[in-house]
């Protein structure tokens, strides 16, 4: 097994409750991998272990060959709930990502803030507090903050789950573009099949709890790296979406 992120016989229990069965998996660097599965199946727990926020009960997780033991800025989290700090402006929220970095001086930090404000279309709202901007913008702020921290790996736990359909689509397109442009590895947790197919280079489909891998689908081989919004209306996309839906019904016995 190879990969930038490696799960090596990783399993997790909370007390008597077995949440993740022994799992081995390698994820390539600079790829966008979607963990798809029924709600509560344990996919978030797997992702949190990559973040160092939960510890495996057995086995380990390696990042670039190094064992993950605690959270650090190389693996940033983006949550479903709006996690922008309400007491900081948009600009300062992004700057918070670099607050504890000693390797950047003030000018470098300012340059990075400017870069991410522009990249996420937030420049006009730099001085606004999160309660003055939309939900979509708040999630942009959260992603920008994580990238500004210098994270190699973005761990995204249903980050667009609370957004309206149009904003969600727009952010999905932006995320694909930014992931490729910034060369980041993304683990994206969702139970939305359409979102998974649109975003993923690869979908890892999990069973009901305790989670185990039931399918590993190479989406990039079918759809390629570019994902304009129109791709959702193509025959290939429909077929792939249906294939994933069938797999979910047959392999997990679940309606996601």
């Amino acid at each position, binding site marked *: 097994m190879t990969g930038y992120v490696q799960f090596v016989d990783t399993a997790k229990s909370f007390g008597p409750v077995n949440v993740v069965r022994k799992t081995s998996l390698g994820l390539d660097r600079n790829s966008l991998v979607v963990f798809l599965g029924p709600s509560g199946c344990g996919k978030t727990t797997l992702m949190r272990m990559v973040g160092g926020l939960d510890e495996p009960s057995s086995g380990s997780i390696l990042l670039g060959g190094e064992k993950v033991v605690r*959270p650090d800025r190389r693996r940033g989290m983006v949550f479903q709930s709006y996690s922008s*700090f309400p007491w900081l402006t948009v600009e300062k929220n992004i700057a*918070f990502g670099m607050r504890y970095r000693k390797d950047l001086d003030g000018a470098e930090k300012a340059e990075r803030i400017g870069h991410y404000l522009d990249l996420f279309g937030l420049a006009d709202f730099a001085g606004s507090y999160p*309660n003055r901007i939309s939900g979509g913008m708040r999630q942009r702020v959260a992603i920008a903050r994580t990238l500004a921290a210098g994270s190699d790996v973005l761990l995204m736990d249903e980050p667009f789950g609370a957004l309206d359909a149009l904003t969600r689509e727009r952010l999905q397109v932006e995320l694909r573009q930014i992931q490729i442009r910034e060369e980041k590895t993304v683990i994206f947790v969702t139970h939305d099949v359409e979102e998974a197919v649109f975003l993923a280079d690869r979908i890892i489909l999990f069973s009901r709890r305790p989670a185990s891998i039931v399918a590993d689908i190479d989406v990039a081989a079918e759809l390629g790296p570019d994902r304009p919004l129109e791709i959702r209306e193509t025959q290939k996309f429909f077929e792939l979406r249906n294939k994933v839906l069938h797999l979910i019904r047959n392999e997990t016995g679940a309606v996601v």
Partner: protein
Amino acid sequence: MFSSLFVFRGRASPMVEFAVSVAAAVIVVALWELAARAGIIAPQFLPSPSRVVIALWTMLTEQNLLWHVAVSTARVWIAFLLAAVMAIPIGIMMSSYRIVGAALEPMIDFIRYLPVPALVPLSIIWFGVGEETKIFLLWLGTFFQLVLLVADDMRRVPQEFVEVARTVGANSRQVMIDVALRWMGPTLLDNLRITLGWCWTYLIIAEIVAADSGIGYVIWTARRFVKTPEVMAGVVVIGLIGLVTDQLLRLLHRRLFRYL
């Protein structure tokens, strides 16, 4: 302009709300004045507001009331600040580290249910009848309540915020200072405002213990001679101090937490 006042969960402008507050107070005082003048209740039980105002003026000009107010205010603020300085870190530690929580929570829960007057004899035995006893009794009424409120505030800091900070490289101390305390700021100030009010409510108890100064002493002395207007004037003064302090703290809240 006023119609929104009658809408379920409606909103009104600050000016309208202020006008309603003043009007309600004027109506209550007017009814009180009428009831007193009509002789419905004997004046030694309920003197009219005008008699209370006259008593207040006499106390201000002839009985050094401002000095007593200053003494009481100093006592309340010393006890309150002591309570806050101790309760904030202890409350935070109780929620942050289970060993501290497990050790202190049962004890604090036990003590905070004890009525402060029941501890007056003990406090006299421990501290005598000087300032220490008064400060101790005021502190007692505030600290144990505040420490649990702070612990609750800390417990409510969203886990996502803590985890975001940890994944950008913050250590536990930095999470505490840069995230938890910042998040707690508004509710902490609210809780301080509320407990400061409680601290004032213990003033009479604290100032009847061999006191020779303070509003509590003035009220207690007036009571002995059934000078009801003076008793009520003392009570009104405490209420006014509370009202002004509360409004100032609300203003501070609005200034400090503009992002809310």
